């Protein structure tokens, strides 16, 4: 029965994915005038997030986002127009943004892989293998820091990393502006999305705003865990509740850094991972903050939709959740190379979890899956680049649901 229900939810999610926005032919696109799911359209044509977690702001008891079940969300990045969000969706999936028209944002942030890519570390332009794994984009609207090493403080700043990195999308500011301004369809779409602009030319800020708007619409807060948190205790099976209790216990201590409701406390932490074989030690946030005590520190990733984003860690070290959990149980600093002196986080210790407990933890974190607000990839792109050129988009449309 539970399985059936779950299938129904998956089916519903897939159906949303298709039905959400219908996309006319590339050269006569009208941007969507309604908000994505999860957002209310205000009288000023802005999309504002609405979530059951916002009900808990009224209690004024606890700081938002730091743990507990009925707990408020951190500040959200919302208030974009439906048109900006929809334009961002086209840009996000369009490889025209890269140097040679082969890599889009969605190449490494694939919707059906939790907006990651299933690789140990991502692959950029000309099949260049990159240093780190692509992080999921679900719920980025709530984040204050971006990249594994926390070096960007806004989505706008973050995207300039991959866009202009020669190994990732490899374009330049000049090339990007030139390319988009040369496409009539995009000129028209930017005018729709930014109607009060004075110049007719597409500007960098508008590109960043639109992609930020789309990324900020990726909300996942409707998992079975959330139903439990809101008070429906039958939403989780006995084994999953056992997992929740291990998760928040002070033996496993998972909930100390992966704090509900986002399942990240948004801090950086040194957990003492070794590098993948043959790779140099990754200094992580040491370089961002010029602080040797942060050597090997990385941002605490959210566990929302974690079942979709294997392999795990900034370098894809572990293929399964079970292996990832076993790392935490195997002892403080057990992987640290002898040449490194790391300031390992105090919550990393040796909890000696039993196999049974580790299995229950896996059960629990899998209840954090919710893709009911999955956006749909465009059927065609304003650039005219064939959508099937991007294998990831093809994968998504193969989710094809039960519509005629």
């Amino acid at each position, binding site marked *: 029965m539970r399985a059936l229900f779950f299938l129904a939810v998956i089916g519903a999610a897939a159906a949303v994915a298709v039905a959400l926005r219908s996309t006319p032919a590339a050269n006569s696109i009208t941007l969507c005038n309604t908000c994505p799911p999860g957002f209310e359209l205000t009288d000023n044509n802005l999309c504002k997030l609405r*979530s059951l977690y916002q009900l808990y702001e009224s209690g004024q008891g606890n700081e938002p986002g730091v743990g507990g*079940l*009925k707990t408020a969300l951190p500040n959200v990045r919302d208030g974009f127009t439906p048109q900006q969000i929809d334009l961002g969706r086209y840009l996000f999936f369009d490889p025209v943004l890269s140097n040679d028209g082969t890599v889009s944002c969605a190449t490494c942030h694939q919707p059906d892989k939790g907006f990651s890519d299933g690789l140990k570390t991502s692959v950029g332009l000309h099949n260049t293998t990159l240093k780190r794994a692509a992080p999921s984009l679900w719920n980025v609207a709530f984040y204050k820091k971006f990249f594994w090493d926390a070096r960007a403080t806004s989505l706008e700043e973050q995207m300039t990393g991959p866009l202009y990195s020669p190994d990732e999308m490899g374009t330049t500011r000049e090339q990007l502006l030139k390319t988009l301004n040369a496409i009539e369809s995009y000129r028209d779409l930017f005018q729709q999305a930014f109607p009060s602009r004075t110049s007719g030319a597409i500007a960098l800020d508008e590109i960043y705003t639109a992609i930020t708007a789309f990324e900020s619409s990726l909300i996942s807060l409707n998992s079975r865990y959330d139903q439990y948190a809101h*008070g429906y205790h039958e939403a989780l099976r006995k084994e999953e509740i056992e997992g929740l209790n291990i998760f928040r216990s002070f033996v496993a201590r998972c909930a100390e850094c992966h704090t509900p409701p986002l399942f990240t406390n948004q*801090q950086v932490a040194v957990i003492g991972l070794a590098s993948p074989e043959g790779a140099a030690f990754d200094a992580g946030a040491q370089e961002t903050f010029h*602080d040797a005590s942060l050597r090997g520190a990385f941002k605490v990733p959210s566990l929302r939709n974690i079942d979709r984003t294997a392999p795990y860690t900034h370098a894809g070290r572990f293929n399964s959740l079970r292996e990832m959990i076993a790392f935490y149980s195997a002892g403080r600093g057990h992987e640290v190379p002898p040449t490194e002196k790391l*300031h*390992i986080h*105090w919550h990393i210790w040796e909890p000696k979890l039993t196999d049974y407990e580790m299995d229950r933890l896996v059960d629990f974190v899998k209840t954090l899956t919710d893709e009911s607000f999955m956006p749909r990839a465009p059927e065609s792109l304003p650039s005219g680049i064939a959508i099937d050129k991007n294998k990831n988009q093809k994968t998504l449309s193969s989710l094809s649901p039960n519509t005629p």
Partner: protein
Amino acid sequence: MKIAKRILLVVAIFAIGIYCGKLFFGRGSDIPAPVPTYFSQSAQPGDSVGIGAGTVTGKIIDVKNGSSIQEAVGKASPGDLIRIYPGVYHETVYIDKDNISLQGVIVNGEWPTLDGEKKQNDAILYSGNGVLVENLKITNYKGNGIMGQAGNNYVIRNNWIVDTGVYGIFPQFGKNGVVERNILSGIEDAAIYIGMCDNVDVRFNEVYGNVAGIEIENSRHALVEYNYAHDNTGGILAFLTPGLPIKTCYDVIIRNNYVYNNNTKNFGAVGSTVSHIPKGTGMLIMAADDITIENNIVTGNDNAGITITDYGYAGVDHASDPESEPNSDRITLLDNFMSNNGADPVADVKAIMMTKLSKLGPDIIAVGGGQGSCVVNPGRYRTFGLDAYANCQARDTRSVKTYLLDKPVAPRVTATIEKGKMTYYGVCSGCHAYSTRLVGPPVNTIQALYKNNAQGIVDFIANPVHKRDDYPEMPPQNYLTEETRKAVAEYMLSLTK
């Protein structure tokens, strides 16, 4: 002098109380029972009214030996009291509901005991507001005795906690709570750990034989008074720990405590912050601000009576946090009774002693940065590093009776109209838009079908049936309460776009 006398009297009564506790409750064990309630000066009926917890408005559920406390919690509704009778209970009890009271019933000195047998992680976990836990003996857990996460308005009192692993009593992210008249021993980190909380009173507890007795960490507005902290590695601590989401620790009053002989060898877990605390630490203030220390008796702590420091002390090796200010600022040291501290200090302190030509370690030592601190009558104590401390303007903290709020923190969910809206957008909008088809039918179609019939929607969505061939069957929304379904149905019927 009068004050000092009074303190001595209180301590004497305290000692007698402990002795009597041992006499009456501790037969067959050397661990004393909680101090009887009459000892508490504030133990008036209804003294937790400002907290709200323990106000029983519902039914009483009895749990007898051989049955499960968790089963009772499962059956309980907000306002219920669960009474636990003597017996041994091997379980983890979690309370994800509001206003639940767990009350041990002690019969002829026999306590209801939660025993984790060193197999279970935590004895009690709670996330609800208004949770009360009292009169329980808790022992042999691996993680915590009692741990709260974001539960406000909590009362934790009269519990007897022996070796429950990392922490004994650990309210985390809670606002407005009291931890009083508990006795805790054998904890490998902090026996009472107030983590990232606001507005808390910690009073009349006895903590001994732990690595840390009482720790106030990244919390604000904490009153620590009338506690007896002895034979720990460190007695009473106030820390700002870096790398946590709460970046401040301030406004802590530590007064009228008895901090005695905290010379137990450190048995903290490798890597934990407290594993760096030198044995013989009476009080330790690290990177916390606006701390007032008043009227304590601090004696016989072999390293130092009171240590005030930044992170650069005692080998603490946390990664730094650009958002956490590392100095202890505006420390106010009022009248305290200190003697016989510093008999056997660690090497770092000995090195300072050499420069001072002192044969004994300090009553008070301040190292590292910090500003705006002051001390009253420092000539009474052996002090290191207080040269920059001014003479205090403040003379006492009498105006602060408590840090509890006048009334409980408000319940988390209030407005029904908001609930309808939040549920519609937060849940329903994944499948329903106003005038276009997503997965399910558009809202305006639903409005036409259910005009003035919100109850029809309430009933349907709890148990949907497949009505139309051109739409998939709706998954049941029975996880929403009837009240929530009503709110969202009404909201859907009121939508205009």
